[in-house]
């Protein structure tokens, strides 16, 4: 509900909705404010401090991501102080992580480096080398945490808690040692983790990354994204296959950004990680039928469907319609399941129809 209340941001008089933050109001008006620790789906942490803006009447700069607008609030256009803080924050985070962009983006793209390029820095500072513990013995198959790139923004832990409702990971230790950990620093597979990989998607630095893609060795930005629909279930999540064209290979699967598709930036373990079948040598690429010697041989879809329909009709002829049963897969959509029961009920007049996910 838009009320008739106004806030002034960068000289623009904007109406705002109850409870909106400076960042939300500004974004609606296409006024850019940089953020590192923010995601619209999560409660603000106010940790990275890059989004600070000057609000008239306040001595200290205020975090745009967490400060609610109020009527007649005036947010100044980026003053030298605001600009200096952005550059300070970027130098700070770079000194604490990986300053070399190519190295930082060896796998995932880095929002931190994007912002450093766009806003500039206060100079290159001596690396800090924070003593953040990792979990080197975590032998889960998919997710790699690299503490030297972590900015302790807590996007991953907030995601795991507030969106997945899993709470497998946490901010742990204190001060310079602050890191991302699990209970007793166990492997993710020995926690409540569902291996959804959402923590990778929200990470702004590539500190959370995918083991297989890291091993493949090509940065994400050199891969081509091919949008498709996940075929593991009927939800219809949109996925981006990240394809290495030169090798003709799907290297990993990512989610389209939040707010753009039905899955709102989320995926499950199957959609995100269960893709090694794509290039598996045992993968079936043609229908198989048995020849007279009883061996499976490749054939055309016409031939295969012909064999199936003849076999179904002959069972029905010899033993009656109720000798047939139709079971569809949990990977089918609602429409496909509808067609399956239509085939059973209308085609063969039997109620022997089921779907494997209906227990």
């Amino acid at each position, binding site marked *: 509900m838009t009320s008739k209340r106004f806030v002034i941001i960068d000289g623009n008089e904007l109406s705002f909705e109850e409870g909106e933050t400076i960042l939300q109001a500004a974004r609606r008006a296409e006024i850019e404010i940089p953020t590192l620790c923010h995601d619209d789906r999560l409660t603000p942490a106010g940790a990275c401090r890059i989004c600070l803006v000057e609000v008239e009447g306040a001595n200290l700069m205020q975090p745009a991501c967490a400060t609610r607008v109020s009527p007649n609030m005036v947010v100044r256009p980026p003053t030298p102080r605001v600009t200096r803080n952005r550059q300070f924050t970027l130098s700070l985070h770079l000194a604490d992580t990986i300053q070399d962009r190519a190295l930082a983006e060896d796998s995932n793209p880095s929002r931190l480096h994007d912002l450093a390029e766009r806003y500039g820095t206060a100079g290159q500072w001596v690396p800090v080398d924070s003593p953040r513990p990792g979990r080197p013995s975590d032998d889960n198959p998919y997710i790699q945490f690299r503490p030297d790139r972590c900015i*302790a923004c807590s996007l991953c832990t907030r995601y795991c808690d507030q969106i997945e409702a899993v709470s497998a990971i946490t901010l*742990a230790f204190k001060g310079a040692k602050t890191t991302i950990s699990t209970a007793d620093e166990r492997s993710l597979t020995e926690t409540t983790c569902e291996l959804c990989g959402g923590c990778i998607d929200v990470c702004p630095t590539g500190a959370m990354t995918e083991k297989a893609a890291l091993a493949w060795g090509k940065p994400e930005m050199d891969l081509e994204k091919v949008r498709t629909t996940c075929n593991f279930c009927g939800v219809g999540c949109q996925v981006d296959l990240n394809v290495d064209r030169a090798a003709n290979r799907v290297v990993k699967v990512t989610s389209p950004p939040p707010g753009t598709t039905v899955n709102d930036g989320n995926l499950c373990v199957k959609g995100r990680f269960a893709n090694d079948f794509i290039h598996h040598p045992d993968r079936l690429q043609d229908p198989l039928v048995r020849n007279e010697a009883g061996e499976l041989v490749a054939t055309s879809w016409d031939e295969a469907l012909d064999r199936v329909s003849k076999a179904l009709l002959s069972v029905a002829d010899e033993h009656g319609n109720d000798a047939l049963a139709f079971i569809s897969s949990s990977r089918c959509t609602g429409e496909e399941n509808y067609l399956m029961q239509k085939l059973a009920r209308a085609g063969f007049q039997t109620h022997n129809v089921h779907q494997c996910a209906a227990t």
Partner: protein
Amino acid sequence: MQPKKARREEILDRLEEAGGQRTGVAKTVQRQTLVPEADIFGVATFYSLLAQPEAGIRVCQGLTCQLAECEHLKSELEADGKSSVFASCLGRCDLAPAFWDPEDESQIDRAPGSPSSPDLAIDLAAPDSLAYEALHKAAEKGPDWVVGELEASGLTGRGGAGFPAHIKWQAILDQPETERYVVLNADEGEPGTFKDREVILRRPHLVIEGLAVAAQCLEARDIYAYVRGEFGRVRAALEEALQAARKAGHLDDGVTWHFVDGHGAYICGEETALLEALEGKRGMPRMKPPFPVEKGFRGKPTLIQNVESIACLAGILRRGGAWFRGLGRTEPGTKLYCLSGHVERPGVYEAPMGTTLRELLAMADGVSGTLKAFSPGGASSGFLPASSIDMPMDFGGLRAAGTMLGSAGVVVLNDTVDMVWAALTQAVFFEEESCGQCSPCRIGTQILRQALERYRDGDPGALAYVQDVAWGMGEASICGLGQAAALPLTSALKYFPEEFGLASAPGGSTTS
């Protein structure tokens, strides 16, 4: 996400019962409280007393205790076969080199500094009284009168911020929400500060009475006393006084008193970090607004007050706000000043607000050696040169001078002290005690400590951009820790440039 039935507020106690963080403990506490296991691990590893449960004796490595050769004490303990670790300031700087043995707290028992006098608001040396006159008078006259007297007294918060007390009380009275809380901040951790410890040990009834007045006036049904974990005897003294007051029939049975231990984190003295700790979370300060008077403990209006502030109440209500105001010189009231470091008689001295260092030194039998520098209000206040010896020590004046009265932990340094070393000692403290939540403080404290180490080790260019880092820490940190953490370095650079190889004080921006 924790289940609705989870009992998060219990987890710190449960972790303590279980003997601190060890493999498997998070699981046990998860079964008891239903809080996700990872969250419990995150909390356990935040608090030093839980994260290192078997560390043994804590030896203070604060500035004052380093001047008193705490390293030597540690080696002696080790020679005796006792395990020990260094810890941040233990609130016993008068006893430097200080230590905390969880099994034996007999080290903290000392006479206070100033002699008893009727012109002192707290008067540590006077016998503690069980009369509770102020409480009964407040009951009779009502909340408006109490807040009126508070306003007349001009009492400002003694925990460090110097915020007028009556504004907080009135703000709570103005809240429509009737579930309200009163919290005593006895987490005293600012290096150089040990006054709250003395107040509770010497005059616990002043504290109990003040809290009872607050609960009665603000209609709070629960009072929480948060006492730093290394103050076992202090907590015991407070609990004993509560029993006595209850026995004497002074207290409202409808009010529940809770005693909560700190678990070894300086940052939990910051009021919103303290609230997080009470709620069973990592002690990371909240963003403000909203302030605790509006949304505090459990999101309800909460009064948080320092021990010394609370202890001033009884006198104010008994003898009148005007009396208290008149005690001060440049600002209202008397103030407990903690003197430690190179002074002949370290201790807590109560003197009119605005007393100078020269006068305080006279009370403490003078400097040991020749005065070079001092911190007026703990590590967070940085350093002032000897030439500030006649500056009135109050909230406004010191703030205007780019420093602060803070908790009035006055640390005196003589001319044997190397200011690079002194600044480095404070930098180590802030790096150790940063909660790690926001980047300016978490990373900035590391940069400053590393730059000082490199400078000490002979790299003349090591301090090249520390002023830029200090600027950002002061401007962008979430809480007072990060905002003040660069002050020891920037003030040392300003007043002692020659020790940093500079001909004059550096220009450019500093924190303000």
